[in-house]
């Protein structure tokens, strides 16, 4: 009997103190995904990767906005969004105390502005993506100054049109030349 008590005393207490003390999660624990909206470029890579469709995005072209939404009630904490995010905007935190009484509190949203095309005025990409693309080009050694922003802020269709016009002029394929 005494021996048994000794074994028990030696083994110590296995029970976690939680919820009376904070619960230390293990390293690499994947908890609540947290979006840093300032860093997000609304590219929707995470939305495409999310296997549970917990991440969704919707455009409101009338308003010129795009809204990112995470439904924590559907998230399976796989970390695919963190893997694919090009700007490190979304990171899985160790936060696990996510139970709610009100289902609406499971929704995390962020709204971003859409870029209107400089030529035709149609929204075609998130505004922050334009700045990010210019920064990436700078990083890879292409000199792009802010004056060229209008070029980047044109939709693919208008860009194509502009290229055709420019080439037509440079190759003297103007209407007189064709006659």
């Amino acid at each position, binding site marked *: 009997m005494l021996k048994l008590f000794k074994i028990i005393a030696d083994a110590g207490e296995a029970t976690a103190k*939680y919820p009376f003390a904070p619960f230390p999660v293990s390293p690499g624990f994947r908890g609540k995904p947290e979006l840093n909206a300032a860093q997000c470029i609304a590219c929707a890579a995470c939305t495409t990767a999310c296997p549970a469709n917990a991440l969704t995005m919707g455009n409101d072209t009338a308003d010129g906005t795009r809204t990112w939404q995470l439904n924590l*009630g559907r998230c399976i904490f796989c970390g695919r969004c963190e893997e694919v995010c090009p700007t490190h905007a979304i990171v899985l935190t160790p936060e696990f105390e996510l*139970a709610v009484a009100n289902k609406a509190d499971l929704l995390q949203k962020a709204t971003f502005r859409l870029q209107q095309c400089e030529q035709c005025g149609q929204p075609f990409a998130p505004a922050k993506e334009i700045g990010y693309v210019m920064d990436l080009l700078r990083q890879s050694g292409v000199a792009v100054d802010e004056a060229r922003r209008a070029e980047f802020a044109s939709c693919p269709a208008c860009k194509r049109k502009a290229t055709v016009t420019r080439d037509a002029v440079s190759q003297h394929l103007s209407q007189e030349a064709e006659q």
Partner: protein
Amino acid sequence: MNGPLPLSNPMAPRDERGMPVPLTESEHIAALKGKLLKDIQRSAYVYRVDCGGCNGCEIEIFAAITPVFDAERFGIKVVASPRHADILLFTGAVTRAMRMPALRAWQAAPDPKISVSYGACGCSGGIFHDLYCVWGGSDKIVPVDVYIPGCPPTPAATLYGFAMALGLLDQKLKGTHQIEGEADRAVVAHPAIALDVRVEIEREARRLAGYRAGRLIADEFLTLASETDLTLDECMKRRLSGEEDPRLAEILTRLWDIGAGVARG
């Protein structure tokens, strides 16, 4: 259950399109529930209703009553019959076949009872939300008091959810809506390193270590390489001395080779 139920079946109401309508509680029962929570001076009994989950959630519920987490020290006991239950835990995305058994369990539990949606499936259908054969969440069939997200929720998250259901702990999570500010600008990572070099390093690290770990290792390497005053060789030698994980050391060495190759031109 073959074919749609008659719409007038009061036990399992459906709307005119045949979609299930959640059962409701009378105000009287809601008031009783408030009273129960306020001065519950005894154990709370939990009955698990499996509405067609993958069994992952069940395993975590049982993990929560093992000695490590020991929900029983708070008097939370898992019971074998809904007739003994104070709390009903609904797991799974509510398959068509499991809707009636779940409703019968809900009706068998004495009032006032607390219903909990457990796991991503219970909260919203989870990864099964768009399947043809599920109703997509326990709140589609019964009134739910607490939602515990996770796939499956960890035992600690389960304890937190129980404590919330019993009114012992407060809800921490709030819905948020961030709006893009005028001056917001995404910062490019490691601006001191040329883009193609960064891409090459990140690709190699991800190829060797897998996607998520690879990114962390590539990040560590690029931070080391761009923020040091030492040469790359000295810096990496210092980093690798005493590194106990041979896999990590090998991957870092490989990245170092690439970096050195770039530096040589």
